[in-house]
């Protein structure tokens, strides 16, 4: 089965088992190991990627459903030498500790931010409730997201 999909702005043609999980396709076929597996049943959110801008658990999706879809993984944000502003905010605020939930957390947070989500902590907490983190207790993550939303608001006002 041939599946055409766009991953991090690159057009790809996947040929192989149609029921292979999206997470395995990303990690094994395209060596995008930034997407992590924590539970394999859609509970922890470590494998969150964006499909057409929506955060989804890539461990629950057979690649067959991805024909014509646009997928973004953590690798679409920044690189260690040139961090995306959200990544830098996480670094500054202490939003990452062990780091295993971080790629998924960033994708859920970025989906919230890029849709113009509010900076209210309770709403951010709801937006991130599908991503489990066992290290941080979430507060520093929430603060990282608030900072970026506020920065973006200030910028759009000055533009």
């Amino acid at each position, binding site marked *: 089965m041939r599946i055409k999909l766009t991953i991090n702005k690159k057009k790809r043609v996947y040929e192989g088992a149609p029921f292979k999980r999206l997470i395995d396709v990303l*990690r094994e076929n395209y060596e*995008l*190991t*930034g*997407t*992590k*597996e*924590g*539970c*394999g*049943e859609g*509970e*922890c959110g*470590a494998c969150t990627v964006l499909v057409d801008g929506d955060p989804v658990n890539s461990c629950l999706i057979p690649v067959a459903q991805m024909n014509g879809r646009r997928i973004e*993984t*953590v*690798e679409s*944000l*920044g*690189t*260690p*030498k040139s*961090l995306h502003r959200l*990544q830098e905010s*996480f*670094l*500054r*605020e*202490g939003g*990452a*500790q*062990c*780091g*295993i*939930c*971080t*790629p998924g957390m*960033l994708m859920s947070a970025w989906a919230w931010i890029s849709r113009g989500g509010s900076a209210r*902590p309770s709403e*951010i*907490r*709801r937006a*991130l*409730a*599908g*991503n*489990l*983190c*066992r*290290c*941080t*207790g*979430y*507060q*520093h*993550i*929430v603060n990282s997201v608030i900072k970026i939303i506020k920065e973006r608001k200030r910028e759009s006002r000055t533009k």
Partner: protein
Amino acid sequence: MPAAGTNIWRREGPEKLCGTARYIDDYTFPGCLFGVTYRSSIARGLIKKIVFDPKFSWDEFTVVTAKDIPGVNRVVLIENDQPLLADVKITHPLEPIVLVAHSQRHKAYEALSHIRAEFMEQPPVLTIEESLALKETLYSMDNAFKKLLIERGSVESAMAQADFVVEGEYRVPHQEQAYIENNGIAAYFEKDGSLVVMGSMQCPYYVHKALKAVFKLSDHRIRVIQTTTGGGFGGKEDYPSMIAGHAGLLALKSGRPVKIIYDRHEDMAATTKRHPAIVRHKTGVAKDGRLLAQDIEVIMDGGAYATLSPVVLSRGALHATGPYECPNVRVRSVCMITNTPPNGAFRGFGAPQTLFAAELHMEKIASVIGMDSVELRRKNVFKLGAVTATGQILRESVGAREVLERTLKRSRYAQKRKEYSRWNKNKRHSTWRGMGIALVHHGAGFTGSGEVYLASRAGVSLTQEGTVKVLTASTEIGQGTNTIFAQIVSHALDLPQTMVEIEMPDTSLVPDSGPTVASRTCMVVGGLIERAALEMKEAVVRAAGEFPRTKKGLARAAAKILNGAPFRAFIVQYKKPDEIEWNDHAYSGDAYGVFSYGCVAVDLEVDRATYEVRLRRLTTVQDIGRAINSKLAEGQMIGGITQALGYALWENPVYQNGFMQNSQLTNYIIPTAMDTPPMDVEIVEKPYSHGPWGAKGVGELPMDIPGPAVAAAIGHATGLWMTELPILPEKICRKINAN
């Protein structure tokens, strides 16, 4: 510029944030096989035979049983009673029996369904009560892995003279560490026959020691490398030694690299948990609130093998009194065997269990003698010069009273108690509201003479190129080891922290600085590298006249002291501070070099219809000595508190016939961002003279505090006395119906 005390950014943060940090499952090895484990389906019995489906084509697979072990079939740790693979005897559910490897993950899993072990079942002992009643005798004469007694003064005579005697019983369950990265290890043999093991772990040298016995290899023939580790919390203290053994055996037999990555179910069901415990208090109190006698009984469930239980019990017993001075104390503690998967290390290591009891019991005492529980705490709390149950005199760095007062003030505890008492009288409100408080201590580093026995070694090196490297086997598992080590060394050398590198935790490159446990990494190992850095500075100054602050300058200075060698390492060994004295036989003396102190106030509400508990706000103040990096320290405090809120309210491992029934993140509930309240955090800095830059331990302390504070707050809200964790809505419901 001073590096310690600043919030520099997490050193390995950029790689973690970009997904380029490599966890064990992100590594590929040419020709690698994937290993899986066939486990027992009974709790106790004998293996009659293992049947391999004759119709299945086994020649594609590598199969390992106990017979394939070249050395000792044991996971070497303390008592060395746990086999690497069950041979004859089954002592707990999901005990590993057979290992299978195949180049394709799904095929390896498929093979498991073609193996069938036949057992002769024996009656299992599944609970602390059954073990105490000697339903079956499984270990020694009394089923006790370990017993410890702490005695001070005379409990009997003091109890007889007390105005009040208050008794209480408290219970805490298993708890799953639930790191988000499951356990995983890869192993391969080099051409020269030496074994290399890589993976997710806290203690590379524990794995190293365990592998030596299994493979009969000498020190230098085994190399253990920690890969980026997605959380540990104690859960990766001892169990990686087991998996490393398994992966190594499959690698030995197949002649290929082998990777074993547990799935979530296997990781939760088969690996270690926090020890469940029953704690009983009988306390003699004077009319004015002075504690006269504490008689405490601690019973823990160790599971099927001793593993770390003796030390977990010790820490539990040593914290059982709470942070209070009492002239007459007796702590009787025992850890029992049961036919359940062995319990092990989990942040707090016995202390959250006994401190839950100690702190909630303070609430009970207060209500019995008619005194405010805050006043009761003020009356008895550790002060400078206080003497603990083991006779330890608290000579310095005692912030207990201060963290209590600061928490009361920041949380507006007294006003809110009053306000909520009024709120609760109004029947039109859909919730009851409550404020609860708890105050604890936590000893940093190994207990008693533990650090002396460990004799940890750590250091720094200077290379030809002028690079300063930190050499320790202490692992970065999310807590910030890399960052604070760089800060400590750069502070000691007065160098920019970017000039300090952290060597990989690879046993072929770094000395054994002991395990990454027990809140010891910053305080104990950090102290060693600070000393080593100062030695290096002295050597450089002696040779070069000054300590250069540029890489070029350092390279020039290095040339003068290296004599052509590529680098010189300055390694120092742990030295016990002179004033610390501990008697292992009497179990008395200085149990820890120093204690950290923490207080939590919880503001919560209970739904009057569903009995759901919602956390409104949490305030915490903790004395952790000088904070090397307060942002990272806050991360430890908030994160540890969140785990403890799970322990208090939601995390409920259910066991049937010794098997965990809810071994999924779907039905074992850890806190989400929505469950966790906003937290107000303050650090109190009472410097410790033997800690680097005055630092004490912070890793475990926050885990000890919230449990009793939550129970006290629920008590304030509902008037119910909840003595067993987790406090689920159904438990509140039952209690309300019973009343």
